[in-house]
């Protein structure tokens, strides 16, 4: 999604006026998932759907799934581990990301 992490090279004529960014929230096209070295895994049985992980996630990388439970969006999760630390029922464990 981002080649050598460099920004594209717009021409003068292609730039919006004053380099304004016209599309709100287009950072969603930039994945930060590759930053992590550990990954949260949510145990659906233990999860009570309390949504604390969803509230505390700095990268909005926790998504609600069926049954009122929650899961991780690995496109954006940076592996900080806050969700695992704050989960009241310890339903989330951090696992080594590994190379591949």
């Amino acid at each position, binding site marked *: 999604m981002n080649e*050598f*992490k460099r920004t594209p090279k717009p021409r003068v004529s292609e730039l919006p006026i004053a380099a304004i960014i016209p599309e709100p929230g287009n950072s969603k096209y930039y994945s*930060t998932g*590759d*930053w*992590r*070295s550990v990954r949260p895994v949510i145990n659906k049985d233990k999860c009570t759907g309390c949504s604390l992980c969803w509230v505390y996630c700095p990268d909005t990388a926790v998504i609600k799934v069926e049954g009122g439970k929650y899961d991780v969006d690995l496109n954006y999760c*940076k592996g900080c581990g806050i969700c695992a630390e704050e989960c009241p029922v310890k339903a989330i464990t951090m696992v080594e*990301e590994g*190379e591949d």
Partner: protein
Amino acid sequence: MKEMFEVRWHGRGGQGAVTAAELSVYAAIEEGKYAQAFPSFGPERRGAPVVAFSRFSDKPILIRSDIYNPDMIIVLDPTLFKNVNVMEGLKANGIAVVNTSKPAEDIIKRYNFPGNIKLGVVNATRIAMDILRMPIVNTAMLGSFVKATGIVKLETIINVVKRRFRGAAGEKNAEAVRRAYNETVFVGGDG
């Protein structure tokens, strides 16, 4: 050393790629060579990909621009291959040193390394965890750097590392350099 030897270090914010580039240059200067190290400037964030550069020469280095066709790349974090084109501009018959737990053949196949590249692999993460208890691999990779290039002597790098990390930390990091030096294996290229 031919005219100029240019190295690009690839890592993530907080992994010490910039420090590694700097230490390699301190060592070269200590041996009376000309050398230059600089990070690719920009806001570094923990985990975000970063790049650092180092140049070595027997003559004063005049150029002060980024390195676009490195003689060698050093990859401190193998997961970078997924999103970062670490090979960009690497000279034909260049060298690549990668911290990985995988054998060299895997890396060549998976990331289709061109035949003419000399690939060095070392499990620097394992070394760092064994010795430093932390996945900080920059000093270990300096061992591989010495083995791959021979630009500086192993002893010089170790002295520089000991000066940078005083006391016990210095000893441990020095040990990491030695182990990586010994455990780096090369394949491919004319080597």
